[in-house]
């Protein structure tokens, strides 16, 4: 049994120690907004925040979570910047198929919380681990710049 803090709420879950956080979120807690993509930390679709840092939940065993605060896409709109990112994603119609976008939003939110005015290079460095097969990168970049320019 492990007790973890997700989106501000403590949950006690029955899981083996090597069960990835992703599957604890999706199966045990039914938080299915975080997506399974590659399962090897190569694509970024499973990105959640662990103590504020974007982390690939598919390779983080539940035993490594400890007292760290987990935040998922389901709760990101309760943060000012997370809410701005989601609104702007809608305004600019950023997603196409949408599968990677919860990971993209988690990465973009962390970037904008750390850097209120990211350059193209800053965006590349922060977002390069989040892959989008629809190729929505230009709209992701545009949305990040729009938030920084108009609302931060």
């Amino acid at each position, binding site marked *: 049994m492990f007790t973890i803090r997700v989106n501000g709420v403590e949950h006690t879950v029955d899981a083996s120690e*090597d069960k990835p956080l992703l599957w604890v979120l999706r199966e045990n807690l039914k938080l299915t907004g975080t997506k399974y993509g590659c399962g*090897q*930390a*190569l694509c970024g679709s499973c990105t959640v925040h662990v103590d504020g*840092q*974007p982390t690939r939940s598919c390779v983080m*065993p539940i035993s490594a979570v400890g007292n760290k605060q987990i935040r998922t896409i389901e709760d990101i709109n309760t943060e000012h910047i997370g809410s701005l990112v989601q609104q702007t994603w809608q305004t600019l119609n950023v997603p196409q198929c949408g599968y990677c976008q919860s990971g993209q939003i988690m*990465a973009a939110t*962390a970037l904008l919380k750390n850097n209120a005015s990211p350059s193209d290079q*800053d965006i590349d460095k922060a977002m390069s681990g989040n892959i989008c097969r629809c190729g929505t990168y230009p709209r992701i970049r545009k949305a990040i710049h729009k938030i920084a320019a108009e609302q931060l």
Partner: protein
Amino acid sequence: MPPNFANTIRRIVSSSLLIAAGLISSQVAAQSPLFQPLFEVLTHPRCLNCHTKTDFPRQGDERRRHAQLVVRGEDNHGAPTLQCSACHQDENVADGAVPGAPHWALAPLSMAWEELSPSELCAVLKDTSKNGNRNLEALFKHMSEDELVLWGWTPGGDRTTPPLSQPAFVEALRAWVDAGGPC
């Protein structure tokens, strides 16, 4: 052939051999045999891929640039919000696909070892202004006990390991340290 001439030839040949042997031995002496096994371990991809002189880590035995274009970052732990720890946990993942060890990071640029000759690498390794202010005993402790260093011998998946076993490396390291760290 007159005997005197034959003796002269013999003297020339033997003295040439002595000079040649002297040259060879002086080249060997420039590279301590005590450091050679350490050099072979330290330049193995498991060590060198994160002791780069570049703004990014490498991966694989072919030492390609790390996927996802990850960067070194100001503190050698990646970009501010794409840290090494986003993917690299404190241990390898169960199937070995993603390697992990505590304090996963690149070595600082002062500890870059890429493309150094054995004597250059030896000098950099011992230079306390570059090695985190470690004397020989501190180097021994770091290289024989640090969990990220030890990961090199348990890298997970089908990754290759350095040419010496970890105990053999520690033994070679001890001999080098006891000899005063000859280069």
